[in-house]
């Protein structure tokens, strides 16, 4: 059997990077699906593109620049109303420990 394009532990590592919780079943299924997709995408390997510039922006242009003039900010109460949790004008998240000492 051919070596899979992506192994289960790589799937788990990528899921960790992407902050996606996957159950064991989901991880196995993901591995199979990604393996099949990556298997197809490998067709690009037949092309030698080492001398070809990448196209990051399909329509070439330079970044426009904005004048440094303040504009009105959002209404804080409207913004915070969308937050799952907020307190004292801030967005509340589970305690973040900045340092493990």
């Amino acid at each position: 059997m051919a070596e899979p394009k992506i192994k289960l532990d790589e799937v788990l590592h990528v899921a960790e990077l992407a902050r996606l919780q996957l159950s064991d079943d989901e991880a196995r299924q993901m591995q199979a699906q990604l393996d099949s997709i990556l298997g197809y995408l490998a067709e690009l390997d037949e092309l030698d593109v080492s001398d070809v510039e990448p196209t990051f922006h399909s329509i070439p242009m330079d970044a426009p620049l904005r004048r440094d003039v303040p504009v009105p900010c959002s209404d804080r109460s409207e913004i915070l109303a969308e937050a799952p949790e907020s307190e004292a004008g801030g967005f509340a998240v589970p305690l973040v420990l900045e340092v493990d000492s």
Partner: protein
Amino acid sequence: MAGYEPVIGLEVHAQMRSRTKLFCGCPTDYGAPPNEHTCPVCLGLPGALPVPNEKAIELAVRAGLALGCQVAPHSRFARKNYFYPDLAKGYQISQFELPLNEKGHLDIEVEGEAKRIGITRIHVEEDAAKNLHGIGSGAVTLVDFNRAGTPLIEIVSEPDLRGADEAEAYLKKLRDILMFIGVNDGNLEEGSFRCDANVSIRPAGQTELGTRAELKNINSFRFVKKAIEHEIARQEGVLQGGGEVVQETRTWLEAQNKTVSMRGKEEAHDYRYFPDPDLPPLAFDAKRIEALRQALPELPEAKRARWQKDLGLTEYDAGVLSAHPEVAKYFEAAAEALAKRADKMKASEAGKKVGNFIQSEVLRHVSTDGLSATFPVGPSAVAGLLAVVEDGTINGKIAKKVFATMVDTGKSARAIIDEGGFAQVTDKGAIEDEVRRVLEANPSQVQQYKGGKTGVLGFFVGQVMKATQGAANPKMVNETLKRLLDAP
């Protein structure tokens, strides 16, 4: 025991003083209540898009030019992807490949030795939000996005520094330059100028670099030196104990006087940089770069040299007067105004007088806050005061009293003198009467003078000044004394 050589590279994050954030029009001012200075862009709301701030980009180019960098004709924004509550979009817009500025340098001096420190790159990026702890119920972390999106430059040095002293000198000089070109307010304590240090050590003579630790959270010049010295000592201890230095991020804990590992937070950092598809490349043609170079404010070092050459200052005075860009401006304005007012006064003379007066009288009333400074009176008022000293209306001693009144009342020197009897006695007859009284009262000193001991002249001057409570014009007293004593 074999000596170790420390190798240090610094990464400085400096907030740029544009009025608005890097990618949106929210103000960058400090001090607003949490999340009042936010909008869909800096909050990373769905569908919002970044548009770069012209002023911020120009300030970054200015920093590059001041530090001898090459400005890229095309540079690129990239996304640095990681999750953290202070990062609204799950990525920071930064630069990776093709930064705005590359290959610069900064010359420092340590114990009289000049040394050139390479600057690898200076790139533009957005600041993160602030995580607030211990507020509200205390059971949660609160995120305030007011700071999120504030423009930063990250200045990355080459690992050219060989000790904590050099690192400190580099940082001080860098801060000085960034303040004088109006890019950064130099405020370490408030975090607008932040430094991370990559520290490694190697046996003296070895060319290969040792494993480095990245020191974070160094927010004062005092800490920089201490933290680096501690880290060097820690690594020496590890190596001498037969251990190995681990590549990791460590943070300086001032209260505990040590660096500690931040392991766990650094697990599997894989930032997945890629060009930001929302932002086309930044273009700078040679003409625009040249125009920005021409508009670059005078750098502090050049300024000090010019002052010594043209404005009669000593190296020390020049250093004191250029401690803050606003003080420097104040000094220059006052010196120029005095040279204009006082007839035929040379620039160097005016500079010296103004410089002395600012140092002895004005500076103690000056307070600075970031790039701004508050002065007790304007520079032209100081020039006005020194001009009336120059024309003999008052003497230097009285000038100090007049200045104190100027500070208290905000009135001009002339107005205070007119009201308060601070003017000197310039009445020829009155002065001559006083001189005669002094000469009569001190016959033996008169004899000494006539015998050739002309040095006693100073004694007579002092007596006259004392008798007039300092109000007599010293020049006229001098002249009158000489005339009477030298008379046959």
